[in-house]
C-alpha cells in the first residue's frame, strides 16, 4: 500500500455558498487502485468535494492534482479526457436518448472523425462508429443492459437508470471513477449487485474509485481507505476499521451502533 502510485491529490480546498462553508480545508490523497470512500452526514460537503474534483465548481482556495498535474482550474469538459469521470447523486442522464446513445455519447471524445466528414457518413465515420459500438456493447454486456439498449432512458425504472449512469461513466474508460451514492434507493439484492460491479470495475478494469455512499455495509466492506467529513472538515481518515471506531465519526455520522 505504501508503494502505491498517487493518482489524485486534494490539497486544502475551500468552497462556500453564500455564508455556508461547504468544504473547509479538506486534503486527501487517492492512490492508484484504491476504492476510496468519502462518508459524512448529509450536507457535510461530500458532493461538493466531488464537484470540485470534476470542475463543476472551482475551489476558492487550495488545489487539486491529478497524477501530479494541477487541474484545479481546468474546465469541466476537459477532465474526462484526463481520466476523471463521475456519476451523479440524483440521476443526470440524457433522458430523451436511448441507453445506447447515452453510452455512445460518452465516447465522443474518443471518436476520431470531424463534423464535416460525418455528413457523408460512409467511410471513416462509419468505421469509427462500428468500432466504438463494439466497445460500448462490451459494457452493455458487463452491466447486463442488453435488453434495454434501444429504450429511452425516461422509460426505465430508477434502479436501471442508476446502472445506465454507471455504464455511461464506464464507457469513457476512466482511470478515476467518482461515484456519488450509487446504492441509494436500491434494495439489498440490487445493492449487492452494484457492489459487485464496483469491485469488478476496480479489479478487472483497473479503475481507481472514489465512492460516496451512506450504506455502511458496503462502504466498510469494499473500501480500501475512508475519509470522514463533517461540516466541510475532515474528521478522520484511514482504513475502514480505524474510521468505523473513531469517536467523532460515531457521534456525527454513524450513531451509537458499532459497524465492525
Amino acid at each position, binding site marked *: 500500500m505504501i508503494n502505491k502510485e498517487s493518482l489524485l491529490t486534494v490539497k486544502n480546498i475551500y468552497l462556500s455558498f453564500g455564508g455556508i462553508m461547504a468544504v473547509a480545508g479538506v486534503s486527501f490523497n487517492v492512490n492508484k487502485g484504491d476504492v476510496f470512500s468519502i462518508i459524512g452526514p*448529509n450536507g457535510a460537503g461530500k458532493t461538493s468535494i466531488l464537484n470540485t474534483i470534476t470542475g463543476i465548481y472551482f475551489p476558492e482556495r487550495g488545489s487539486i492534482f491529478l497524477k501530479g498535474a494541477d487541474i484545479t482550474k481546468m474546465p469541466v469538459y476537459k477532465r474526462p479526457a484526463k481520466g476523471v469521470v463521475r456519476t451523479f*447523486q440524483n440521476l443526470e442522464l440524457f433522458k430523451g436518448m436511448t441507453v445506447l446513445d447515452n453510452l455512445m455519447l460518452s465516447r465522443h471524445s474518443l471518436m476520431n472523425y470531424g463534423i464535416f466528414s460525418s455528413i457523408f457518413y460512409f467511410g471513416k465515420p462509419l468505421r469509427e462508429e462500428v468500432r466504438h459500438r463494439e466497445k460500448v456493447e462490451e459494457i452493455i454486456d458487463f452491466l*447486463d443492459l442488453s435488453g434495454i439498449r434501444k429504450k429511452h432512458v425516461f422509460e426505465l*425504472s430508477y434502479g436501471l437508470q442508476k446502472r445506465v449512469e454507471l455504464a455511461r461513466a464506464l464507457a469513457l474508460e476512466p482511470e478515476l471513477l467518482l461515484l456519488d451514492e450509487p446504492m441509494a434507493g436500491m434494495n439489498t*439484492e440490487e445493492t449487492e449487485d452494484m*457492489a459487485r460491479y464496483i*469491485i469488478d470495475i476496480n479489479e478487472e478494469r483497473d479503475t481507481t474509485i472514489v465512492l460516496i455512499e*451512506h450504506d455502511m455495509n458496503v462502504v466498510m*466492506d469494499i473500501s480500501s481507505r475512508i475519509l470522514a467529513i463533517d461540516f466541510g472538515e475532515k474528521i478522520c481518515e484511514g482504513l475502514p476499521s480505524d474510521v468505523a471506531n473513531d469517536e467523532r465519526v460515531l457521534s456525527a*455520522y454513524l450513531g451509537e451502533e458499532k459497524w465492525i
Partner: protein
Amino acid sequence: MLNVNNIEVVYNDVILVLKGLSLNVREGSVVCLLGSNGAGKTTTLKAVSGLLDSEDGRVTDGEIVFMGDRIDNKDAAEIVKNGIFQIMEGRRVFKDLNVEENLIAGAYTSPSAKVKDYIDKVYTYFPRLKERRTQLAGYMSGGEQQMLAIGRALMAEPKLILMDEPSLGLSPLLVKEIFNIIKTLREKENASILLVEQNANMALAVSDYGYIMENGKIVLEGTSEELVKNEDVKEFYLGSGTGRKRFRDVKHYRRRKRWLS
C-alpha cells in the same frame, strides 16, 4: 381506513403496471410496502394520492376506498383534503422557494390560523430546518431536503401519510432519525403511515404489517414479525440475517427470487 382492492393501473393507455393489487392500511398502523426497483411501489402510492393523473396514468379497474369514500381517480387536491398526503420519491422540494415558504405551501389545505403552530412544530422536529429557514431549498443537501419534505407533510396534518423511500440518500444517523420520526408520528400525531422503503430492516422494524410486491402484484404479506422470519425476505431484503456481509464473496450478480410469479 385505506382499502385498495384489486386495482389495475395503466400508463399512457398501454403500459399495464399494477395488475390486480390489493392492500389495506388500518387506522393508526404503519404498513410497509417492499419490492425491487420497478415493481410498482411508487405507482401504487400515486394511485392512492391521485398523482397518477399528472403522468397520464389511470386506475382502470378495482377500487380504492379511504374512510368509506371511493377515491380512485379523484383529484389530488381533493384527496389531500380528505387527509392523505404523499411524500414523493426524490424529495421534490420547491427548489426556488425557501425553507419556510416550502412549509407554507405544504399547509395549503390547513386552516390558516394553524400555519404558524405547525411551522414551529416542524422546527422542533428538525432544528436544522430552522437554521436554514430562509435558504432556498434547492441548495440544501439531500438529507436536509428530505427533512423538509417530511416537514411539509406535517404541515397538512394528514390522517394517512404515504412515504416513498424517505431514507433515500440519508446518512445512517439520519436514517435512524427518520425512522424515529415515523415512530413519533404514529404515536404523537396519530397518523397512519404507508411506507415504501428499500431499507427493509428498518422498515419492518417500525411497521406492524408488510407487503412485498413484484411486477405489479403483491406476492407476500404478513405481520412484520412474520416477514422478518421469512427465509426469502431474509435472503433478498434483509441481507443474510443481521450481520454485515462480505460483498466480495457474493459471486453472482443475479439470483432469482423463489416467489417469482
